[in-house]
């Protein structure tokens, strides 16, 4: 998927652990791990809002669009 989740980078910049963020946001660490590892298919605005509020960042810092390279024939 061309949407990249940079949650691990933002967490490292804030020196915050995933479990602490999960506690602050109010979602399970498992769900947050799904988001961090890029397995998530969608993210609710409410979740994104809570993460941005806790980390003090913009959605663009967490999510990044990176176009996929065309497959060679």
């Amino acid at each position, binding site marked *: 998927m061309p949407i990249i989740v940079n949650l691990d980078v933002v967490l490292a910049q804030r020196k915050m652990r995933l479990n602490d963020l999960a506690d602050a946001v109010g*979602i399970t660490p498992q*769900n*947050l791990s*799904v*988001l961090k590892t890029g*397995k*998530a*298919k*969608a*993210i*609710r605005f409410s*979740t994104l809002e809570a993460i941005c509020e806790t980390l003090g960042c913009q959605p663009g810092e967490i999510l990044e669009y990176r176009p996929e390279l065309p497959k060679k024939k």
Partner: protein
Amino acid sequence: MNVTLFWALIVCVLLLIVFQFILRTPNNGAAKVVQPGLTRVRKASLVISVLLWLSVILSAYWCLSFLLGWPSLFQDRIRIVTSPNHIYSSPSEMPPTIFSLFLVKLGWGLFAAAAMLRLFWLYGKGIFFSAKNVSCLRFLGYYVIVEWFIDYQMQGTQHDVSMSITPIFVGFFIIFFAWIMDEGRKIQEEQELTV
């Protein structure tokens, strides 16, 4: 080597492939949580699985009885009826084309039995809407259609029976339902991966 023994060996090899097909299913899906309301479905599926196993064993014995000339459990000899005018009580009585088609039907039936067993085994484990269920269901749809074509070929060579095309529609409906189930499974997966 006796021809009948040769074909019996082929049936045994096919049985081995079928068992491999069943055993290949990993059991990690059993970890999925099952709602209490589905417990009865699981139990019923396990009962059906046992019945299916019994029918597979009986069918295997029935086929070997016919091929090797063993006594039947319910009558003196097994008879294969391809049409009212064509009844065979041993492989040697069958024309080569009919015998080949019979063996193809037998092998194809084994794979269908494996798919059925796998499907009910998955239901018994509490896995109802996974990609494996869909593939089993889709295979059964293809089985019904291909089975009809094999029967058509078997009876078509004898030109004395008209066949209903209902199984073809049934097969297409099963494939259609498998497709809908697959789409539902994808939606469920997407919802599960929404954070």
